[in-house]
């Protein structure tokens, strides 16, 4: 399959040369070739299917294209993507936003799930510490995302059930469920939207961030 694609590519290059096109293939041609190479190079493995790449949504395709161009996403497209993702957020079915921070901590620590070496049925981890500081006692944390140490405290959440805390509580849920609702090309996964975490797990993570008793707020 390698050879085939590369031969196609060679003939494409040859055609371009014949046409006197010294500057090489166009952006559209390169994009098409990349798609072709992706289809020929990746294969299903266990429960991880190639469709994860080929059938991705506009959020990803538009942001990828902007990244390649090295320019921020067009404002109108960004707005449209954010609105679509905002609409897709599922709010807690029972109105309860705050779960058990202890279980939230375990989910935040775990980086497991959804790779081809993971079981297809086990509960997934949240990968939070890979990118964020949270509990100060955990020194092994990443810096791709901002520190979330004292997340609730900094925002003045002393009682998450207080109506005054509502905007923060809801924002926190929404951000975890679908980060792209607030920033179209955020690096952060859409934990709820993409089925990485279920509603109960998201609730526990919100608890970890906002419960005044959580180590995050100590």
């Amino acid at each position, binding site marked *: 399959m390698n050879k085939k694609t590369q031969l196609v590519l060679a003939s494409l290059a040859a055609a371009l040369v014949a046409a006197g096109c010294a500057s090489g293939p166009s952006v559209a041609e390169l994009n098409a070739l990349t798609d072709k190479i992706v289809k020929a190079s990746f294969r299903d493995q266990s429960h991880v299917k190639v469709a994860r790449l080929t059938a991705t949504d506009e959020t990803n395709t538009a942001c990828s294209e902007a990244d390649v161009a090295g320019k921020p996403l067009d404002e109108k497209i960004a707005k449209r993507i954010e609105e679509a993702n905002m609409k897709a957020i599922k709010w807690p079915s029972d109105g309860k936003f705050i779960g058990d921070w202890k279980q939230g901590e375990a989910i935040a*620590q775990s980086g497991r799930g959804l790779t081809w070496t993971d079981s297809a049925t086990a509960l997934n981890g949240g990968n939070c*510490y890979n990118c964020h500081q949270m509990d100060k006692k955990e020194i092994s944390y990443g810096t791709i995302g901002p520190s979330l140490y004292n997340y609730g405290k900094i925002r003045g959440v002393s009682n998450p059930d207080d109506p005054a805390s509502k905007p923060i509580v809801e924002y926190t849920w929404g951000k975890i469920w679908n980060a792209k609702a607030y920033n179209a090309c955020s690096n952060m996964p859409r934990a709820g939207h993409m089925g990485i975490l279920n509603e109960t797990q998201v609730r526990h993570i919100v608890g970890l961030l906002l419960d005044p008793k959580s180590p995050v707020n100590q």
Partner: protein
Amino acid sequence: MQNRRETLKQSAVVAGLLATAGFPQFAHAAFNKAAFDAKSVQDAAKAAGATSMAESKDVTIIGPDIAENGAVVPLGASSALPGVKHLLIMVEKNPSALVAMFHVTDAVEANFSTRAKMGQSSDVYAVALMNDGRALWAKKEVKVTLGGCGG
């Protein structure tokens, strides 16, 4: 003139002599299963022949403060004291504490390094087992972190 049987007999005797008298300091080279099976630092030291234990400034344990991965933790043990028979490297919280037992001879310095597996953060020990049965030890804490993507 020797017959074949006698030759065999004689070489067996020679082999026996070599085995017992050859190098007395290597007499205990056989694997000390009891010491390696022992769970705790104390039990492992006892199984290796220790009759008493005491912390000592004359024994040195070398290891990192933090290990990026518990699968490979560089550890070293040394002592300049006279009369050291064995140098032991131990990890307190491993299922069995004893990692390695080095035999000190006139031909080598009492200074050895290897790398150990650690299941979790733990104190690591260098134990110098003296000719008189005393076990002199030094310890330090090694933190084992969860690296990579936490998978």
